[in-house]
């Protein structure tokens, strides 16, 4: 799981062109959207595309989105469960 969390941090930084941010700066339990990183709804959509492309994870409702993008840890958890077929 830690590996996935780190991998997601790197992908978030790359996908969103986060300036002066390294994976170590991102607290996986901190609020991801609207938090210190300054991410907003457009970034969420960009991440939705990245998750579908790189992990095959589909997110097509706002309600699920809010849950998944709560933190990097929540995101990793969702991706992990989705991939192991435990999520619907």
């Amino acid at each position: 799981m830690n590996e996935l969390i780190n991998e997601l941090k790197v992908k978030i930084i790359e996908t969103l062109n986060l300036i002066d941010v390294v994976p170590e700066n991102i607290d996986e339990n901190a609020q991801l959207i609207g938090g210190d990183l300054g991410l907003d709804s457009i970034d969420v959509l960009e991440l939705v595309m990245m998750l579908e492309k790189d992990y095959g994870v589909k997110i097509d409702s706002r309600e699920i989105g809010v849950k998944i993008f709560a933190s990097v840890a929540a995101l990793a958890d969702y991706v992990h469960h989705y991939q192991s077929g435990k999520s619907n």
Partner: protein
Amino acid sequence: MGIISPVGRGIRDTIEAIKNAAPGIKPLRLFPTSSIESLPVGEITSLTYSEDVPRTHALARIAAEEAMHNACGSPDAVVIGVTTGGMPVTEELLKKGILDPGKYTYHSTGSVASYVARHVKCNGPVITVSTACSSGAVALKIALEMLRSGKAKQVLAGGVDALCRLTYYGFHSLQLVDETGAHPFDRKRRGMSVGEGAAMLLLTVAESPPHNAVAELLGAGLSCDAYHPAAPHPTGDGALKAMKEALSDARISPADIDYIHLHGTGTVDNDLAEARAIHSLFRDRPLPPLSSQKGAIGHSLAAAGAVGAVVSAISITNGIAPANTGFREPDPLLNLIPSVEPLQANINAVLANSFGFGGNNAVLVLGNPQRRERAPNLFCKVQPVPLAVLGSACFTGAGNAKKTMERLDQGESARGIVPPLEILKPLSEKYVRRLKRLCRMALSLAVSACEDNEKLAPPSAVYFGTGWGGMSETYDFLSKLYASDEQFTSPTDFIGSVHNAAAGHVAIRFQSTGPNVTTTGGDCSFEHALYSASLLSHDSNAPLIVIGADEHHDILSPLFDASVALGEFPADGGGALYLRPATSESLLRICPSFIAYAGNNGGGISELIISLGGAKRINEDFGAILSGIPAAERNKGEAQLNDFLSTTGYPHPVIDYRRFVGEFPSASAVAAVLAVSFAHTGEIPANICFPRATPLRGRGILVLGFGSHITAMEITP
């Protein structure tokens, strides 16, 4: 009027469709979609056209021909709102890897208006407005002000957009498309249906309406949310401001409105913001019948505002409020129940809303021409106002204005690619992390132009001219789409690919909630922006900013722009002027004096000379001419310039600025900023035309543009 939409071609069919609430949304058939299931769209399925032009151009011509049917003579001006331009063809070519510039002749949004102008034989201003989904209504506002100014007696104005992958996948990537088709204002609405169409209106100015007038455009209001690149202000503040401006412009009150043609895209956020704005406008008064047509015909984007105007006119002439197709269940959050069936009603005044990306709002008020209760709001020939220069900034390959002047002082060319770090200098990299080259350039220019004037009010309105818009975003969007077999792309790139994205960012930066207009008329986009600024500023004293910028893109620039392909060096850049309607005598002024389309014949030069006050004034008042001739139009442009010089016997220096600024559409914005700088110092610096500096002796400078458009900007002390 002329119209083509998914429910009919022509006014007669459209009236029938409205009476029957005909549905026009079906799964996409126009192009294959390899991975996602075909989404419901508003597609015109039986479109046939013989000429080898993009779909957008064909749609525009169909609507224009209908509008001009039985018209008396050619229009004095054409103003068209468009965002897709030649994209339906361009994206196919790029998908196939065809990189022959000859095939991209019709790519630009500006080529649509020129194409229409050729068919309707217009030799006056031919202006393209690209403000996303409000484009058509903004075009009508500009046309209205042209008529009020006395600059035109008859204007053909409207909007057009065609379905293409860019918009189809773009809105899908933003999760703004309802997979069951749009049902605006319904509790379970989940988004829009992307559509296409064209609507054109022939507007004429008259003290008493002509016998065949179908409606009167009573007024229009523009505003900007200055809030978010793609989402509306949550409480609809910008929409409310535009509605209020429109009603005030039309000199009527909310109580006079008999029907509201809603923007109503069907997205969760738009419909909520619009409903809130309507409630704020009407307060406790009962709402008139209201409906969105987008559940029936989809969202025709840049055409939507003009389609709304035509539908509003039909509602007036036929006494019918159209149905809000797709609405089933009221949404308690909206507290707004649109008409579910077409409604017979006596309609004398209509409020028609259009809102777009960049928080761009445009609202029209149309009235029954036979029931006019007040004198028309014509302002009796208010001329476009000269604008006083408060600040300026430019970028060339040399860098900012100072570095550009240093380079020119040394007798060297400033053309080239603007260094990225130079663009970034006045900006925070974190703040602009999502912005690509053009948006950064425009924002940086705006910030630099205003930075020495912190005591003055920030610009309340933004005018932006760009020949090609955000090419980096367009290219990256399509590249990602094709690389993933049309499965994935970047929502950020889609938002950035909209031509008015940069102007939206400038508005957010300065909280500019006034008009936000982006013009995309090729090599005179900047002049059109300045002209629009001057037209729309006659009743205001607020500062504004006019920006012109274009980015160089290694692949797209030489494909799209024949002048770039001919240029020896790639170049880009732009300029910005921080302005205020001129009141003080002590400031330099800039005035867009002349704009004409010269694509139909060889004329235009004598009209240019007349509009500048004749040879005597030109020779006495202007100590230098900065002349802009795009490389692809050298022969034509030089003949025009020579005609101008020999007719006037012009005795002062003439400077061919593209030779040292480079080949890109908004080179004229750089020229305007340089002219301001020369006029400030009172001389043309050494090495620009002569080895020594040339004194202007209190005279001004003319910036002229030649080629398929002839333009003049006066800079006077």
